C-alpha cells in the first residue's frame, strides 16, 4: 500500500559553491540556497511554487527530481528516501518523475525531429511500441500526428512547449515538474497551454509541481500554493485561502504588485 503523499520533504537544505565570489586559489565559499524546507505533495494535487528571482524555487524543483543532491534533510518519494541515491539507483525512478522546462527552444534538440525528441526518453528507458507511444503523446497535447516529422524551429512557441509536455507525459510519469513553462509565451498561447495542462492532470491523474513567478497563473491551476523567499517557505496554504487572505505581508506584497488588467485596482495611483 502506498502512502497518501507522493513527496515528503523534511528540513531540506542545499548549498552550492559560490563560483562568482571565489578567490583564485582554495575552495569557494558555499551559498545556502535552500534553508530548511519541509512540506508534502499529495497524490493528484497541483502545487504552485512562487517566489521572486533568487528565492530558490528552481533549485528546490531540481532537488525534488534529483537533478541536484541535497546537502542535508530528506526527500521521500512514494515511501522511498531518494535524497542521496546514486544515478544507477535513480534510473528506474526517473521514469516516474519528469520535468518540463522553461525555454523549449533550448530544451528541445534543434537537430532532431519531433518524433525523435519524444522518443529519446522512451528508448532510454527501454520501452517498446515507441511509434504508438509518440502518436499517443501527440494526441494528448493536441498536436496533429503530422508534426512527427517537423523540427523545433518549424513550430510556434506554444507548439514547442506542447512538444515539451508530450515528451514528459510519453513515459506516463506519476509526477511532473513544470518550471516557468508559460512565462516565455504570448498570453493567447499561455492560456491554451495552461488549459491543456489542466486537462492532462485530470485525465492522467498526474501530480504536478508548477513553478511560476506569476500568481495569476498559479491561481487558475493550483490546489495549493507555496510562497518561497530566500530559500525558506514564507507560507503554504490552499490556493483559494492564500489568495483571499494571505497571512504573510510578503505574500500580500506580491499580490498587490500584480498589475491587473482593470482600471480600479487599489494601490496603483
Amino acid at each position, binding site marked *: 500500500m502506498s502512502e497518501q503523499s507522493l513527496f515528503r520533504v523534511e528540513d531540506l537544505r542545499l548549498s552550492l559553491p559560490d563560483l562568482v565570489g571565489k578567490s583564485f586559489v582554495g575552495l569557494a565559499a558555499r551559498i545556502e540556497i535552500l534553508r530548511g524546507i519541509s512540506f508534502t505533495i499529495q497524490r493528484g494535487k497541483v502545487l504552485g511554487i512562487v517566489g521572486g528571482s533568487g528565492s530558490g524555487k528552481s533549485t528546490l524543483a531540481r532537488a525534488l527530481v534529483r537533478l541536484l543532491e541535497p546537502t542535508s534533510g530528506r526527500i521521500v518519494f512514494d515511501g522511498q528516501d531518494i535524497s542521496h541515491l546514486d544515478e544507477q539507483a535513480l534510473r528506474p525512478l526517473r521514469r516516474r518523475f519528469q520535468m518540463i522546462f522553461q525555454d523549449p527552444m533550448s530544451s528541445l534538440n534543434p537537430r532532431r525531429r519531433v518524433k525523435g525528441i519524444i522518443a529519446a526518453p522512451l528508448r532510454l528507458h527501454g520501452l517498446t511500441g515507441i511509434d504508438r507511444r509518440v502518436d499517443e503523446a501527440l494526441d494528448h497535447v493536441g498536436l496533429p500526428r503530422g508534426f512527427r516529422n517537423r523540427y523545433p524551429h518549424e513550430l510556434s512557441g506554444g507548439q514547442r512547449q506542447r512538444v515539451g509536455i508530450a515528451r514528459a507525459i510519453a513515459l506516463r510519469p506519476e509526477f511532473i515538474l513544470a518550471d516557468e513553462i508559460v512565462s516565455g509565451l*504570448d498570453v493567447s498561447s499561455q*492560456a491554451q497551454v495552461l488549459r491543456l495542462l489542466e486537462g492532462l492532470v485530470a485525465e492522467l491523474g498526474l501530480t504536478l509541481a508548477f513553478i511560476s513567478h506569476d500568481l495569476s497563473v498559479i491561481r487558475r491551476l493550483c490546489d495549493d500554493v507555496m510562497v518561497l523567499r530566500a530559500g525558506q517557505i514564507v507560507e503554504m496554504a490552499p490556493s483559494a485561502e492564500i489568495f483571499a487572505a494571505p497571512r504573510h505581508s510578503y505574500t500580500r506584497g506580491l499580490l498587490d*504588485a500584480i498589475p491587473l*488588467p*482593470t482600471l480600479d485596482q487599489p494601490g496603483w495611483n
Partner: protein
Amino acid sequence: MTALLEIENLSVALKNGPRLLRSVSLRLDRGEVRGLVGESGAGKSMIGKAVLGILPRSAEVVEGRILLEGTDILTLPPAERRRRIGRIAALIPQDPLTALNPSHRIGPQITDRLVDILGWKREKAEARALELLAEVNISAPARVMRNYPHELSGGMRQRILIASAFAAEPALIIADEPTTALDVTVQKQILKIIAGMQARHGTALLFVTHDLGVVSKVCQSLSVLYAGKVLEDTQVADFFRAPGHAYSAALLAATPKYTDPEGSLMPVGPEVLAAVQAEVDAADREWRHV
C-alpha cells in the same frame, strides 16, 4: 496644434519581402502616454525603432511619413535626422543588462550622450546625472556613478536607464518593454517611477508592452497591433470597459487575473484568429493594387 509625433501610413518591409508594419497611423500629443500592445511579431517594437531611426538593416520603410514636431524625419539627410531625433526622443530599453556596457562605469554611460551629442559641458552633464539618479530613488548617486553595471541589481540598472533617458529632457521617450525582465514587486516600483517622472517632466511616452495589466496602470491611450496592423486606436478608459475589436477583446480575456480565475486565461478562439488574419490579408491585397 501639431502633434508631437504623427505617423502616417507607415509601411516597413523586409528587403524584397513581406511587410512588417502595414500602413500604420498613430498620433501622440505632448505629454501623452500611449501603449503599443500586441503579441510577439505584432510590430510594436518595430514602430519604436522606426521613430528612433534604428530599424535593422534588413528592413526598410516602403511608404509613409514620420512627423516629429511637424518635420518628416524620413526626408532628412542621415546626419541631420540623427541630430533631430537625438534632440527630441530617447529610449528606455527592455534589457537593462545588455543596454549598459559592462566594461564602463555608470557615470560616463549617462553623461557621454549629453556631452558628445548635445554638446553639454562635462560638469553640467555630471550634475544633471546626479540630480536624475536621485529622482529615480537611487540613494547614493555619486557612488553609483562610479559603479560598474554588474555591481548593481536589475531594478537599479533599469532605474539608471530611466534616469539616462530623461536626462536631456526629451519631448518623447520610447519605453520598449522596460519591466518585462523584472520581478513583480520591482516592476511596480519601476512603473511608478516612470509614471512619476513622466508627469513631472511632461514627457510623452510610447509604451511598448505585451501586458494589458501594465497598460491599464500607466497609459492614457493605446493602439492594439496584430501582424503590423493597427486594429484599434482608443482611450484606456474606453478599452477596459469595452474593447473595440474582437481580437483585442480576446487578448483581454486571455490575460490572467487572479481575482477572476474562471473568467480569465480564456484561449483565443481559432475563429477570432482566422478573422483577424483575413483582415490583414485583405489589407495586403488592397495595398498591392494601389
